[in-house]
């Protein structure tokens, strides 16, 4: 069943159409949630909540944007709401994306010139660094660099401007670079310490 047909039938409450839409999009939504919260149980709960909201609102979908964009907007909002509740603060989406840095041009922060990340990062330490990003940066980074959305789509999903999306992505990448550099330095320190302990023990 093509997606457009599934949407039409789901708007009439057809059970098979709901399932078809779920099958078409569940992996991508789950992946987004998992990247955002780094916890499979939470990601599954968020995926469930996103689809429930989708199906409750599907009658209002008019096709002005792509269905997947609409669904991702719901999913991102569900995740951001969850993260806000978790942090115990009532913050707006703008605050989540750190608007006070919006107007400025990219930070002139080149980081340590002595370390290169090439060959020293893997999925695990990249995800660890992503976990430390502010939610807004994280969402834009995951949507663009992990899931491959374009800035105009992210702007629709996040409810922001294209320029804002580009700016958030730049800051996310720069922040990740700093975090990954720190992780590499930390690892080097530990290795030196272990080597020192080891040679000291032999003396």
């Amino acid at each position, binding site marked *: 069943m093509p997606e457009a047909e599934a949407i039409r039938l789901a708007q009439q*409450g057809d*059970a098979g159409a709901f399932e078809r839409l779920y099958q078409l999009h569940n992996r991508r939504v789950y992946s987004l949630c998992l990247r955002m919260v780094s916890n499979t149980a939470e990601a599954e709960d968020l*995926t469930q909540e996103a*689809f429930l909201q989708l199906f409750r609102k599907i009658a209002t979908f008019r096709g002005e944007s792509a269905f997947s964009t609409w669904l991702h907007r719901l999913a991102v909002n569900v995740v951001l709401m969850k993260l806000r509740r978790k942090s115990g603060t009532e913050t707006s989406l703008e605050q989540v994306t750190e608007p006070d840095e919006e107007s400025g041009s990219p930070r002139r922060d*080149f980081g340590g*010139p002595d370390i290169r990340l090439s060959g020293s*990062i893997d*999925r695990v330490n*990249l995800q660890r660094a992503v976990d430390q990003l502010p939610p807004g940066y994280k969402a834009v980074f995951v949507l663009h660099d992990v899931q491959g959305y374009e800035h105009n789509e992210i702007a629709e999903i996040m409810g922001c401007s294209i320029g804002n999306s580009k700016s958030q992505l*730049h800051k996310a990448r720069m922040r990740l670079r700093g975090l990954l550099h720190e992780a590499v330095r930390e690892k080097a320190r530990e290795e030196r310490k272990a080597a020192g302990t080891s040679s000291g023990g032999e003396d």
Partner: protein
Amino acid sequence: MSTMNCTDFLNHIDEWIEGQEVPGARDHSRTCAQCRGLAEDLGTIRLAAVTLPEADADPSPHIWTAVRSQLEQEGLIRNGVALQLPHRAGWFDSIFSFVPRPAFAAAYVGALVIAGFVLSGPVHMPTDQDRWRERTQRTSAELNAQLEAAEKTAMASLTTFSPDVTADLRQNLSIVDNDIALCEKSVQESPESEIARDYLYNAYQQKANLLAQISERGEGR
């Protein structure tokens, strides 16, 4: 000679690492080690990001079960036909694949939907072995009673089939019953295991489908 300075390069670095043409960027990166290092790092992050979802497992099938149960409770789903969970390919799937979903199945729908919901529970219910065991035993007993009644009806229709077909169907039922027994045992041993409950639910669903299809074919003869 590079006409771009570091500030200009930094302003366009994202386009540059994404492969867009940025006049002067290549020349600048050749002459400025700091900017070149930054571009290399951001490119490395970008490439690593693409690989992040590769290790992701599929989301649990219980998500759909829970979503569907909730939608049914809220009355958003129109026709409550039997749940179609992603499940192991049943050996009988192909045998009766040509038979339309029988009206007969409606008799089991309520029980299956309830069983599906009870066996799945909230996606992440706190693990409590005794609570799960009690829920599962109660649901299994109710469902087994309904399936037993359905089996009697289906068996009565077997007389309309040829001896060979009857023997095959009896054997298939026996296989499903064994499957259910094994799954029930697994659930008793690990009542908190989502996978064990999922398999048990699928086994019940397989038997309900098989009985419904036997009856449907018997009535159609």
